[in-house]
């Protein structure tokens, strides 16, 4: 093998290495880019009778520097972090709603029962009675507003599901296409690094929506599963998720269906922003609404019963104060319109100055048996304010927990990303050093050509 050939092989190898380095440098800000290395190996040596003579260098392959274990970890933490993040952004809204002094039920209860006490203080005063009616309506409207905010949040979740399902389908379609392209490229020689990067990036993006399991195949494709084994991508085929309307709720809400049969897999979905939104819907919305409804029902029932025991300013038996058919947070409303009809008087010595029933109504505020949480035995009961306290504390505790675990997941995700990047990310200083290294190799290889040329000239001149 000639010196010239060896020199040329060194020049080519150095050039390839310089190209790879340049490619690394130029993709420093490309999302999802994995650094590449030109793998240089010796060319097969020639047997020269009694020894082997090396024949130069060649670039065997350009490899991605990639750790698939770390890549899987990054995905897994991405899903978990996204779930907490999405749950948290929702539950914070409910947390703020319930704690707000303008919307919170506690303030409404205090104001309403304060107005009842004023009627007890002065049962003949029409203005005190009017204030009590107004405060009753304001209390009801606090319930209504909270409920409609929860409904709004439910439709936000629906929106997230609809958008999420669309995006997931686009992403999985992309993955299936990339699987196809990779399958074809792997058939030829060399690894299709940029396609692999793109596919990894798509899988990472998918992990932000939902937790997925990836199963790499020997032919280079990757199968993707959600839930408990629903294959979104199998080889080069892709299956759509879709939204299905669940009308067992009012208003109907969206669930997630799988494939053409639209099998409901909502309860199997975990992780990612979808998992977080679903967790919020199950744990916060449904719970909070049930507890608020119980509170509303307890107020309506107890207040109406006590109110009906009394007699109004004109000596007529008291009717319903709240609409007896509106026993949910959404429907609660005051049915009484005439302040004279507030039944402040008790049944004994019925009279305009009789405030016994107003006192009884006011006492409901601190009655510890008003809200029946469970029938028992022994029955579990609470006061109205305590019931609201339980609602606030449930949401606050869950939100706090989510805050803590979101911080934890974020830290874990960052650490894992750092480890992943420490393997796969581009470091400019390193590339600069490589640039110098390969430039020197190139210069040295050029010298081989010069030397070979000089030797050749010497030989020619000798002739």
């Amino acid at each position: 093998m000639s010196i010239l050939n060896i020199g040329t092989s060194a020049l080519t190898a150095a050039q390839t290495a310089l190209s790879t380095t340049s490619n690394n440098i130029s993709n420093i800000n490309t999302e999802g880019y994995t650094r590449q290395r030109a793998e240089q190996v010796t060319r097969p040596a020639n047997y020269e009778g009694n020894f082997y003579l090396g024949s130069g260098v060649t670039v065997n392959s350009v490899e991605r520097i990639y750790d698939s274990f770390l890549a899987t970890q990054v995905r897994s933490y991405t899903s978990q972090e996204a779930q907490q993040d999405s749950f948290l952004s929702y539950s914070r809204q409910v947390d703020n709603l319930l704690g707000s002094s303008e919307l919170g039920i506690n303030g409404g209860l205090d104001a309403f029962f304060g107005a009842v006490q004023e009627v007890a203080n002065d049962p003949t005063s029409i203005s005190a009675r009017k204030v009590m009616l107004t405060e009753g309506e304001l209390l009801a409207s606090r319930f209504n507003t909270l409920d409609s905010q929860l409904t709004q949040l439910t439709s936000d979740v629906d929106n997230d599901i609809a958008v999420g399902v669309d995006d997931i389908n686009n992403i999985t379609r992309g993955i299936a296409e990339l699987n196809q392209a990779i399958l074809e490229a792997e058939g030829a020689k060399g690894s299709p690094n940029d396609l692999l990067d793109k596919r990894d990036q798509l899988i990472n993006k998918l992990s932000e929506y939902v937790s997925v399991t990836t199963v790499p195949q020997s032919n280079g494709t990757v199968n993707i599963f959600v839930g408990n084994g629903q294959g979104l991508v199998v080889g080069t085929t892709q299956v759509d998720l879709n939204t299905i309307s669940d009308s067992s709720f009012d208003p109907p809400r969206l669930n997630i269906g799988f494939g053409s049969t639209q099998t409901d897999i909502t309860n199997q979905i975990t992780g990612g922003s979808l998992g977080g939104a679903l967790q919020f819907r199950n744990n916060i919305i449904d719970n909070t609404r049930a507890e608020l409804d119980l509170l509303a029902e307890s107020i309506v029932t107890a207040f109406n019963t006590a109110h009906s025991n009394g007699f109004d300013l004109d000596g007529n038996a008291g009717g319903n104060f709240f609409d007896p058919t509106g026993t949910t947070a959404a429907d609660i409303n005051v049915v009484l319109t005439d302040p004279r009809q507030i039944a402040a008087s008790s049944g004994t010595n019925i009279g305009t100055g009789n405030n016994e029933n107003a006192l009884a109504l006011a006492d409901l505020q601190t009655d510890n048996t008003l809200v029946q949480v469970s029938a028992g035995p022994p029955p579990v009961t609470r006061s109205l304010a305590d019931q609201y306290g339980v609602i606030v504390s449930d949401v606050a505790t869950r939100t706090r927990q989510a805050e803590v675990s979101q911080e934890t997941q974020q830290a874990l995700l960052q650490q894992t990303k750092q480890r992943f990047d420490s393997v796969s990310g581009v470091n400019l200083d390193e590339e600069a050093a490589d640039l110098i290294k390969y430039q020197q190799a190139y210069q040295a290889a050029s010298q081989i050509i010069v030397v070979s040329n000089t030797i050749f000239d010497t030989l020619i001149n000798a002739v």
Partner: protein
Amino acid sequence: MRISTNYIQQQSVEAMLRQQTELAKTQQQVSTGERLLAPSDDPVAAVRILGIERDLNLTQQYQGNADVAENKLSVTDGVLTSAVDIMQRIRELAVQGLNDTNDANARAGIAEEISQLNQSLLSLANTTDANGEYLFSGYQSNTQAFDPTTYAYNGDDGQRNVRVGGGFLVEVSEPGDQIFVSTNLDGNTQAIFQTIDDFATALNNNDLSTAPNNGDFLTNMDTALGQVFGARTNVGTRMNAIDQQRAVNEASIASLETNRSQLADLDYAEAITRLNQQSVGLQAAQQAYVKVQGLSLFNFI
């Protein structure tokens, strides 16, 4: 360990963002003076604050109720004081009238004055408060307590209560029949106005020989006065009790407010120290970013 250039950049940016978030939160705490910006900041404290605020509102309502009760009782007390004055004057006049040194004319004059005073006494018994409610007709507060001609009691024995404390209801009205209706020596139970009216008539007629319009009248007046005094004592006792309850409420408001403040209010000294630390931290992160970003081998190629 090898790290990627992008990671250095990301880490610095994330550090700055985190510092900014913390700084913004502290800033919001300082500007609102609230330690808790949402219940989730401290769920246990948040729920305790809800409970404290309910108790605080209730106790403040009780203080307002106590004002109402005290007003009502002091009006009653004033009326009863005047009633006692009038009744004592009537009794003095009766003593004077019963004296045999008086002739018919003198007695008629005294009777005239007693009748006038009796009318005043009656109108006191039919006093209305600022809301136009009759003070002494029990729950029938829009009915005149005593008929001005028959002196019959038209009210009932309802006694209005006002809540001035968690377990404390106080009566703020006295039914008129327990003040102004009494049983005379002859066993007759009637309004004092009737008794006085009868005596005035007898005095006018210069006929003070038969019971009850003789010396018995003084005894009957004493019985009636005793009842009014009794009612005044009741009112006074209740006003004292309200004052005591007010002090109790005051103390619990103070302690509830202290508790609330400990749970909900911001410790400014701590928060401002934290604000300073955090802004120093943010500045440091920013400077570190600029310094680190300037480091590159490419600068030397």
